[in-house]
Every structure is written in structure tokens, then in C-alpha cells.
């Protein structure tokens, strides 16, 4: 029998473990365990009282059985009994059992808490530590309720032993992480910060984890820790390798504590105090210098500990993103690691460089390593390292190296691991689009993507190439020629057929002059793929065929023949059948003119954020903070804009009313975000490829996307991108308003230096007064902060105040400018009046400058209830039975400003049948002030 045992060994336990190990089969093991469980159960139930040792032994056996993966449903009470034993080892086993098999039985919890309470007040440090370990291991809410008040006292009490302090600090940390609401800040917090000065290194090491976590949540309350941390770090960094005795690890002084200190400093911006900052920069320089010194030991532990500190220091340098000198040194150091023989270091260097690539100071320095990184992508044997290399190439890509990087990524794709292909495809597609100067290159790249990794090319990617080809007429001919050639391949991916079908259907005429790609040749080529394709692709091809009939009348007979065949017109798939029937009929009865109108070339797609980028973001999955009241607004916003969304497939289908399109929401996120976390340095977003101004996109262009959605409502989501969500709630009375802005950090990383400013374009400064308090500079990952704006309308105004938001995410500065939805109608006071009054006043306001009128096409349906809701949201009174025509709407209100009141009358006349299929409105505003009439008319014309 093996008896590898130490301390007061439990012979019975060793025998049992040994039996289990000797079991030849799973069945035998289960049989042996059941036998043991029966035995223990009978002992626990037996008349004879068990002594402490036996109880301990059986509890320990139960624990072993549980850890083997079997369920245990008894023994808790015996374990709790052990807690009150005077024998340390018995108590210890009891606590271990409780920590591992947490039970939610409330009676049991009461007993456990009682035992813990006794041990905490025992003044016996080993018992106190055991109790604290148990609380830290369980970390439940019940424990937090019972002990969150007591532990801070133990932590800062003058007579607490060091070992107890260490346990108390980390115990409190665990409770704070689990139930932050139960750990109340108080007088103890300032004393905790001073534990950074404690003589005992172990106490500092434990306490700093707690301080870091608390600082992240309450940066202001803990900001004195910065200078304390810097001086502690400085003492460690400058100490000789033997000074710290047992806290020196393989000749590296206090590596754990150093890393934690550097981590703590990353919760704050660079120190403002010049002396502190100087000292810190000196520390960082020393750490960088030490990396160049010969190692004091050949052991890997030595270099790991040393480099752990170095990487943490580099993280801090990147976090500050303000010391060009240090950034470049960091980059050079990482460059050395890229070629290191240790795989671990190469991995970390690639990872760290990714963040460095987004800093404007070091982007160029990172780029100099391109060849090494490409080499890593080709030669690293470990897929996780290759993945890092691919990420870095993506991060360092800009206009100057895009072609090289895209080519390398494409060739890597041919052999890439299946697990990362989809992400690689998205990245290639994004880079190709973002940095395309010549669009034939872009088209080639995407078609190559489909060729190499067709299965991983998601819908978004091929939709996007079509959107771009449609929006850029300089590339249409080339695209048609290229897809035609690509389709010649005997086996081509279905996605290629989709793109080919769509593009030839739209632009096949551009290559039809060449007899080698005459209309019939094109058609036959497409149709040769038809039978191999899935239903959605066949549906798309049918639409391409009807487009062919319009483009090339000479193909009409052939195509009608195809449509008429039983396999189409009697197809069991209802969608295919319907398309075949409708297209056949359409081509037979419609005149050439009608056909040309119905099957006209697709108009350009609206400029918007690339759906691919949205997809990549979704893959990376930043958790959106759910804010219930904001959700409504978001949905509504989506609907209001939903009418304009269309995907290539549904839009192409001439019978789109009946098409259950497989691509209902392909354009993804609707908001075009002016920031890009992936490569802020590049400055241009994907949407910019459409803009005529070309390169150098507007880093801080005003985003008024959300603005118009808030004319008739007060609450909702004003702005959202991959990092940040801004919700808004507002209320107005008389000439005053209050607006609540909710900034939600959607990422898991904190935003630093978060600040907002309100500015007033044009004359607005004298017309509107907005007051606000600054927000906290740190927004934690997943957190939401609130800002209140107090607004006073002094006189009527036309411009909107602008809100500028700046923050640092990772290393990169984000800059967003939005129009705040403060519009003149917010200060409306509704006025009820009878028909006679209304028309009397209407006539009084008959001077030409008092009236503003617009006639415009309806952007949304003419649903009565929706219209009424919007007019009420406007702030005026909606007057019933006033207008002789019941279809019309009239409203009245008074705009309240500090200097004057302006009466406003409104009349909205819908004309549902202005022309066939076109709905129009006439909107008329009359008020005593011309600027008010004009502004309201402009705002409202966008709402219906």
C-alpha cells in the first residue's frame, strides 16, 4: 500500500484513494465509491458519536469523491461541526469542504457564518486566516452581507498580524468583486492606500490587488496611490538583486509586486506632479535599460520574471501614449523579441505591438518590422502565434503597405487553420476596401478571397463588393470582365456565382461588345452553373436572367424558354416558381419602355458603415450595456430608418413585394461611426471610400445621424459605435430644459481621459445657454456614466449645440462630435383653440415672411397614428375638428424663450395619391417670427 503522506496522515483515506486507483474500470470505480458512500452514511447516522478524527477522515473522503466528479449530497453538517473543533487540522478540513462544496441551505449558512465569526474574533491568527480564506473562496453574497463590514476593520487595525492583513485584503477584494454594493467606502479606504508603504512586502503585494480594483471603480478617492506607487516602484527598481531577500525571485527583485504596481498606474493618466512623473519616467527607462543587460542567470524563470516587468512597463507606456521617446524604445525592444528564440516572447511581442501600432507616435516604428511579421505568419509552427502575427499585420496596415499585407494575408489564407479563416477573410475584405485606391485591385482581391476561401466568405463580404461596384461606375466594366473570367473555371464557388450573376445582370452590357463575351455566351456561362446552386442563388440567377432580357433583347427567346421549362415554372420551391412565373409574364406583356423602367440599373447604395466591419465587431462581441429605457428608442430609431435599407438581392428582385428575402438586414449597423478603434491613425473609415473628397477622412466630423430622430421625441439612443453608446433622456418646461446623457462603455476595457465639451456654432452662443459639470475621467469597461445638461433658451435659434467627446481607448485617442438634439420645438407650449380662433389667427399671420412652406415626398408610410404621435411629440397641440378636410392636420403652440414668446400655427396636408405610387405632403408654418417659421419648417420636413 502506498503511504505517501505527510502531516497527520489519514490511513483510511490513503487506502481508499489507493483502492480507487486500482479500479480497472469505470464501473468498478463507481461500485467502490458507492460502497464507501454507504459506509460513510451509516457512520454519520450511527448511534455512536464519531470522534473528531473519524469525522475529518470521512469528510475528506467525501471531498475526494466529489473532486473525482461525483455528486455529494450529504456530509455538510459534519463538515460544519468540524469548523468548531479546537484541532487545527480538523477545522482546516471542515473549511476546505465548505469552500469546495458551497451549499445554499440557509440554516447551514447561518451555522457556517457563526463559526467564521467565532474564528475571526478568536485573535488566533491561524484561525483568522482560515476563516478569511474560506470567505475568499466562497465569496457569496450571504458572506458579503455578514462580513463586508468586519473585514475592513481587521485590515486596517493597528494590532492585526501581517499574515492576517494579507488574507483580509484579498478576502475583501473577492467580496468587492462579487458584491460591490455591500462593501462601503469609508474611513478605512485612505488607510488602505497607505498599505503601499508597509514595511512587509507580502502585505504590499496583497493589498495592491485590492487597491487596484478599488481605484478602477473610484479613481478620485484613491488617486493618492499614484505617488505612493511610483516611489515604491522606484525603490524596487533601483534595489540590488539581493536587497529584498526572499522577495527576490531568480535575481529579479519583487517581480510580482513590480507588475502589480505598474498595473495600478495604468488606472490613471500620467502623474501631473512633475517630480513624480520624472521619477516614474526614470523607472521606466531603468526597466528598458535592464532588458539590454546580460542576464544574471540562464534560467528561464529569471528571464520570465524580468520580462514580465518589462511587458507591464510597456503596457504603461502605451497607456500613457504621450512619451514618444519611450514609445519608440518600447517598439525597438519588442522588435528584438520578434526574433527571439523563445516562442512565448515572440507571441507576447506580436500581441503588444498590436496596441503600439495604434499610437501615432509609434505607428511608423511598428511598420519597420513588417518583413519579420510576415515571416512569422509564414513560418511560425504554432497557430496561436500565427494568429497574433495576422492581427498585427492588420493593425499596422495603412495605405503605404496595404497591397503587400493583403497579398500576404491572402496567400496565408490558403493554408490557414480552419478556426481562423472566417476572421481572416473579414480582415482582408476590410483592408482591401479601406485602402483601395484603385478599385480594380479591390475587386480582384475580393474575387480571390472567394476563390481561395469561398466557404468562409460570409454574405456581408459579397454584398459589400456588389455595393461598391454599383456605387463606382469606373470599376463596373472591369468587374464584369473579371467575374466573367472567374466564372470560366470549371469548379467555382457558389459565392462566385452569386457575385457573377449579380454583376453580369447589372453590367454585362459593358463587355458584350467582345464576341467572346457576347450576351448569349454570358447567359450560357451563368446558366451552366444554375443546376449546381442552392435555392437562394438560383433565385438570384433568375433575377439576373430577367435583367438580361432588358439589357439584351436578343436573349429574350432563349431565356423565356428557360423560364418556361417545367423545372422552373413548376419548381417545387415556391420562391423559384414565383420568380419564373412573374418574370416570364413580365417579359411577355411589358413594353420595352416599361421593362426598361422596372429593370433599370440599380441606383447607388446609401453611404453607410461597411456591413463587414459591423460583422467583425460582432465577432469580437463587445458586450452592449443593456439599458432598458434606451432599448425602446433604439428599436424605434431602427424602424424609422428601416425603410431605406435594402440588400442587393431583395432590391434586385423585380417582384420584391412577395420575396421572402434571405437578406433582410444585410447592411448591419445603421450608424456610421466616425471613429475606428482598429486603426485610428489611418483616419479614414470604410464609408470614406465613397466620399468624393477622398483620403484623410474627417476624424472629428460632426455626426448628426441621430439628431433628426430626436426632433419629435426626447428619449433614446443618440449615438452608438463599437466602443461607446450614448443614450439620452430629456425634459423641457417653458424655456428651460434638462438633458441626461448616458455614456456606456461597451468594451471590457476602461476609457481614460474621458471628457466632453459643448460648443455653440454660429450665433448660438447668444441664443442658448447649456450648463454642465465635467464627467469622471475614467469610464470602466461595461460601465455607464451619466451627465446632466441644463439648458436655457434665451431667444429662438436655428443651429444645434455640438457635443465633443474625447477619450482614450487602449492607446488611441477617440474623438467624436455629435449634434445635440436641442431644437426650437422643444420649447413649445401646446395651445388648444377652436376652429374660428385658429383661422382668425392664421389670417393675421399672412405676411409672406411669416409663412414657410415645403412640399415634399413622404419618406415613411402615411399611417394616421404614427403621424399623430409625431405631431404630439413635436410639442404642439394637435387640434381636432379644425381643418375642413379631415385628412389634414393642424397644430398650435407657443415657443417659450427667455426674451419673447412666439405663437406658431402648423398645417400638414398629406396627399396620398399625388402621382401613382408617390405620396406627398404640403407643410405650412406660420408664426410671428420669420426665423422660427423657417427653422420649424426645415426640421419638420425631414420627419414625415
Amino acid at each position, binding site marked *: 500500500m502506498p503511504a*505517501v503522506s505527510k502531516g497527520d496522515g489519514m490511513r483510511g483515506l490513503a487506502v481508499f484513494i489507493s483502492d480507487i486507483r486500482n479500479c480497472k474500470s469505470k464501473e468498478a470505480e463507481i461500485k467502490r465509491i458507492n460502497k464507501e458512500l454507504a459506509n460513510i452514511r451509516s457512520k454519520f447516522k450511527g448511534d455512536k458519536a464519531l470522534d473528531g478524527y473519524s469525522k475529518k477522515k470521512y469528510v475528506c473522503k467525501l471531498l475526494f469523491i466529489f473532486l473525482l466528479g461525483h455528486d455529494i449530497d450529504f456530509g455538510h453538517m459534519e463538515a460544519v461541526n468540524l469548523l468548531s473543533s479546537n484541532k487545527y487540522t480538523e477545522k482546516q478540513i471542515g473549511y*476546505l469542504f465548505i469552500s469546495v462544496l458551497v451549499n445554499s441551505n440557509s440554516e447551514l449558512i447561518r451555522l457556517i457564518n457563526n463559526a467564521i465569526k467565532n474564528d475571526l474574533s478568536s485573535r488566533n491568527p491561524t484561525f483568522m486566516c482560515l476563516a478569511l480564506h474560506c470567505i475568499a473562496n466562497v465569496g457569496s453574497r450571504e458572506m458579503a452581507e455578514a462580513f463586508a463590514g468586519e473585514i475592513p476593520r481587521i485590515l486596517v487595525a493597528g494590532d492585526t498580524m501581517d499574515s492576517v492583513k494579507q488574507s483580509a485584503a484579498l478576502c475583501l477584494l473577492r467580496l468587492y468583486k462579487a458584491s460591490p454594493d455591500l462593501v462601503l467606502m469609508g474611513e478605512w479606504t485612505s488607510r488602505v492606500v497607505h498599505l503601499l508603504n508597509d514595511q512587509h512586502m507580502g502585505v504590499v503585494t*496583497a493589498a495592491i490587488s485590492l487597491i487596484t480594483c478599488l481605484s478602477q471603480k473610484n479613481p478620485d478617492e484613491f488617486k493618492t496611490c499614484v505617488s505612493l506607487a511610483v516611489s515604491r516602484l522606484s525603490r524596487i527598481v533601483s534595489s540590488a538583486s539581493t536587497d529584498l531577500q526572499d522577495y527576490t525571485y531568480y535575481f529579479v527583485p519583487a517581480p510580482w509586486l513590480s507588475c502589480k504596481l505598474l498595473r495600478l498606474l495604468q488606472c490613471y493618466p500620467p502623474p501631473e506632479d512633475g517630480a513624480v512623473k520624472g521619477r516614474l519616467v526614470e523607472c521606466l527607462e531603468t526597466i528598458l535599460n535592464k532588458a539590454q543587460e546580460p542576464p544574471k542567470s540562464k534560467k528561464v524563470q529569471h528571464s520570465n520574471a524580468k*520580462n514580465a516587468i518589462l511587458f507591464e512597463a510597456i503596457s504603461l507606456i502605451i497607456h500613457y501614449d504621450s512619451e514618444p521617446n519611450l514609445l519608440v524604445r518600447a517598439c525597438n525592444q519588442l522588435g528584438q523579441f520578434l526574433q527571439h528564440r523563445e516562442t512565448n516572447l515572440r507571441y507576447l511581442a506580436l500581441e503588444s505591438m498590436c496596441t503600439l501600432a495604434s499610437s501615432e507616435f509609434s505607428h511608423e516604428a511598428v511598420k519597420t518590422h513588417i518583413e519579420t511579421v510576415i515571416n512569422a505568419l509564414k513560418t511560425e509552427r504554432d497557430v496561436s502565434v500565427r494568429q497574433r502575427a495576422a492581427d498585427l499585420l492588420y493593425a499596422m496596415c495603412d495605405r503605404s503597405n496595404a497591397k503587400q499585407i493583403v497579398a500576404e494575408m491572402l496567400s496565408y489564407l490558403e493554408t490557414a487553420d480552419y478556426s481562423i479563416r472566417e476572421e481572416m477573410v473579414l480582415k482582408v475584405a476590410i483592408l482591401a476596401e479601406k485602402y483601395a485606391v484603385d478599385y480594380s485591385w479591390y475587386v480582384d482581391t475580393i474575387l480571390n478571397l472567394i476563390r481561395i476561401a469561398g466557404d468562409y466568405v460570409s454574405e456581408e463580404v459579397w454584398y459589400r463588393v456588389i455595393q461598391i461596384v454599383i456605387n463606382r461606375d469606373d470599376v463596373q466594366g472591369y468587374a464584369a470582365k473579371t467575374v466573367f473570367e472567374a466564372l470560366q473555371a470549371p469548379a467555382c464557388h457558389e459565392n462566385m456565382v452569386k457575385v457573377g450573376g449579380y454583376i453580369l445582370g447589372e453590367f454585362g452590357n459593358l463587355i458584350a461588345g467582345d464576341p467572346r463575351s457576347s450576351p448569349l455566351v454570358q447567359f450560357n456561362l451563368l446558366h451552366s452553373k444554375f443546376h449546381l446552386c442552392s435555392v437562394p442563388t438560383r433565385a438570384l440567377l433568375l433575377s439576373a436572367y430577367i435583367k438580361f432580357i432588358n439589357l439584351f433583347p436578343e436573349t429574350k427567346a432563349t431565356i423565356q424558354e428557360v423560364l418556361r421549362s417545367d423545372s422552373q415554372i413548376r419548381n417545387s420551391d415556391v420562391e423559384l416558381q414565383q420568380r419564373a412565373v412573374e418574370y416570364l409574364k413580365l417579359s411577355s406583356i411589358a413594353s420595352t419602355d416599361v421593362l426598361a423602367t422596372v429593370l433599370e440599373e440599380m441606383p447607388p447604395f446609401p453611404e453607410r458603415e461597411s456591413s463587414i466591419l459591423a460583422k467583425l465587431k460582432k465577432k469580437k462581441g463587445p458586450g452592449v450595456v443593456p439599458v432598458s429605457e434606451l432599448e425602446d428608442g433604439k428599436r424605434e430609431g431602427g424602424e424609422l430608418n428601416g425603410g431605406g435599407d435594402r440588400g442587393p438581392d431583395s432590391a434586385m428582385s423585380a417582384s420584391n413585394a412577395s420575396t421572402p428575402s434571405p437578406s433582410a438586414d444585410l447592411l448591419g449597423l445603421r450608424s456610421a461611426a466616425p471613429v475606428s478603434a482598429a486603426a485610428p491613425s489611418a483616419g479614414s473609415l470604410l464609408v470614406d471610400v465613397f466620399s468624393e473628397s477622398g483620403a484623410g477622412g474627417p476624424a472629428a466630423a460632426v455626426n448628426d445621424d441621430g439628431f433628426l430622430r430626436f426632433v419629435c421625441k426626447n428619449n433614446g439612443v443618440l449615438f452608438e459605435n463599437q466602443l461607446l453608446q450614448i443614450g439620452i433622456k430629456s425634459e423641457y418646461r417653458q424655456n428651460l430644459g434638462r438633458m441626461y446623457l448616458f455614456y456606456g462603455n461597451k468594451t471590457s476595457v476602461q476609457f481614460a481621459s474621458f471628457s466632453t465639451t459643448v460648443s455653440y456654432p454660429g450665433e448660438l452662443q447668444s441664443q442658448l445657454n447649456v450648463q454642465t459639470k465635467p464627467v469622471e475621467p475614467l469610464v470602466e469597461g461595461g460601465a455607464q456614466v451619466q451627465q446632466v445638461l441644463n439648458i436655457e433658451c434665451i431667444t429662438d435659434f436655428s443651429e444645434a449645440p455640438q457635443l465633443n467627446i474625447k477619450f482614450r481607448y487602449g492607446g488611441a485617442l477617440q474623438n467624436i462630435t455629435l449634434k445635440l438634439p436641442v431644437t426650437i420645438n422643444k420649447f413649445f407650449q401646446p395651445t388648444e383653440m377652436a376652429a374660428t380662433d385658429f383661422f382668425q389667427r392664421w389670417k393675421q399671420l399672412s405676411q409672406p415672411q411669416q409663412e414657410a412652406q415645403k412640399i415634399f415626398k413622404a419618406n415613411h408610410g402615411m399611417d394616421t397614428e404614427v403621424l399623430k404621435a409625431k405631431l404630439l411629440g413635436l410639442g404642439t397641440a394637435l387640434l381636432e375638428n379644425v381643418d375642413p378636410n379631415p385628412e389634414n392636420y393642424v397644430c398650435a403652440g407657443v415657443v417659450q424663450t427667455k426674451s419673447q414668446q412666439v405663437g406658431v400655427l402648423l398645417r400638414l396636408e398629406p396627399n396620398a395619391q399625388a402621382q401613382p405610387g408617390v405620396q406627398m405632403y404640403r407643410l405650412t408654418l406660420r408664426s410671428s417670427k420669420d426665423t422660427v417659421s423657417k427653422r420649424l419648417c426645415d426640421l419638420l420636413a425631414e420627419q414625415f
Partner: protein
Amino acid sequence: MRFMLLFSRQGKLRLQKWYVPLGDQEKRRLGRELVQTILGRKAKMCSFLEWRDLKVVYKRYASLYFCCAIEEQDNELITLEVIHRYVELLDKYFGSVCELDIIFNFEKAYFILDEFLLGGEAQETSKKSVLKAIEQADQLQEVRAVSIEDLSLTAVVLS
């Protein structure tokens, strides 16, 4: 740190320490999945990998894998040394520790870990202090130590 697992080359879990509240089912599922992932990796591969939304740091000592799942902002290299220091502590306590020591004295392995790490953070990094605390607690009744198939975990690495 979210959790730490020790498992054998055969995929048997020898120690599991969870620093985040999870149900037993979930723990078993995560454990199984991660063990398979790591056993599927070749020797000499990088000690770090991205797994779900976590970073995983692992190292093999003789027949045992030591594996930590850490947070995004945690330091991989220092975690590697957390593992090493734990191995050193076990080695010092058991005297040339092997997998069997951890099987037969699993409770001790947990106690030592609790002295070193608490709530997933380093509590005491000094080897002397941790061992002193453990020795103090033990009522040293050294029985006898017959070592069978003694695969010293540290012989390879520590010498």
C-alpha cells in the same frame, strides 16, 4: 485569475481552484474542454493561448499540466512564474514532489495554494513565508514516505 487546473497527461483532473462563482456543471464542462484543448497542443508550442474570452497560460511539469485562466489585462509571463512558484512550494513541502503526492495529499495541495494565492491574486510570494505558515499549521507527524514510481515533477526543471 479566473481558475487554476492541474491535470495529468491522461486528462485526469488533480486539482481545481475556481476564483469565479460557477455551477458544478459549468465547471466540469469548462474543465473538460480546456483539458482537451491543451492536451491537443504539441510540445514546444507557445505557453499562452486565447481560449473563449480568456487568456490561458499553461506549463507541463513531468506528468502534470498546470494551467491558469487569466483576465485580459493579466500578465502572462508572471502567471507562468506563479505556476512555477507553486511547483517549487509543493516540491519543497513534499520533497521532490510527484503526481502521487498530489493525489494522496490533495488537501495539502489546496492548503498550500490558499497560502500562496487567495481570490486569484498573489497573497504571499515569499517561499519561506508560505512554507512557514504551512509547517506551523501542520502537526508534523511524518508517517513514512515510500516512494513508488517517483516521477519527480521538478527534477527536470529545477536542477
